[in-house]
């Protein structure tokens, strides 16, 4: 059993009182006290066009589990972004299941059920690099 910890810290002066959110979690298997122990590793992908692409294939993961997905736009430019969506095909910008936009430097971490692909599309033909990692509950053995 592996132990993977994730901590978030959000600080803001939006309101007249400081906002301080700090939360930590140990990533666990569905309905279990045992830690997530599988991953395909940290991946990095360069995009130079706006075509949508699947970055996480649901077929690699057992569905309805407690997978977690980390994605970060490594660019520094806040003008451009990646659409991030939950979609069976490669659609990312136009699907109803657009989750949101990751602008330069932005990151996200979300629970993922492994039932449908995660897709992305860059908003620009300028080079943008996406890094991402799935912390998997159960990986599906791939047949040749």
């Amino acid at each position, binding site marked *: 059993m592996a*132990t*993977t910890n994730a901590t978030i810290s*959000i600080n803001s002066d939006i309101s007249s009182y400081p906002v301080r*959110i700090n939360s930590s*979690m140990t990533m666990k298997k569905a309905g279990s006290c045992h830690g997530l122990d599988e991953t395909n590793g940290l991946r990095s992908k360069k995009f130079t066009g706006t075509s949508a692409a699947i970055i996480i294939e649901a077929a690699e993961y057992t569905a309805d589990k407690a997978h977690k997905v980390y994605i970060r736009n490594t660019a520094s430019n806040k003008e451009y972004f990646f659409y991030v969506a939950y979609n069976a095909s490669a659609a990312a910008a136009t699907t109803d*299941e*657009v989750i949101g936009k990751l602008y330069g430097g932005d*990151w996200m971490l*979300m629970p993922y059920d492994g039932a449908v692909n995660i897709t992305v599309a860059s908003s620009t033909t300028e080079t943008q690099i996406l890094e991402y990692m799935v912390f998997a509950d159960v990986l599906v053995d791939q047949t040749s």
Partner: protein
Amino acid sequence: MATTTASVSISSNDLIPGSNLSINASSTLMKGGLTTGLTQLRTGYESIATGTEFRLGPLATEMASDEHNIASWVYICNKATDDTFYIDWGLHETMIGRLYAGDWMFIPWNAKADDHEIEIEAQGGAQTIEYAFFASDLVLPTAAS
């Protein structure tokens, strides 16, 4: 201008044998496509009953901007302690993942239309969540009378 920063640290010494995993990232949350910070905030701490799908956060029509042209962020933490409990979360009638007891999530969110709301449903038992929306264009709903 308000400044909101979100940082994450992910670490594991044994997930990948022979390699210590250490991911650290930090971002200043800005208005969509701009370099000015988000200006509006909604937070909550609420109990979620089982058996009903609830909407979390504002509708698209409560966010004054073009569709898909809003940079909002959502933080949710499931405060339950029973490992078998979780919150199903999704968009547009599509469940995307399970937020188990003790877990948190942080996502960008673009409301395309009112039916692209964030949906949550407690599974296993009633659970309490803590949440925060960071946004740029929230507007209050019109009063009923």
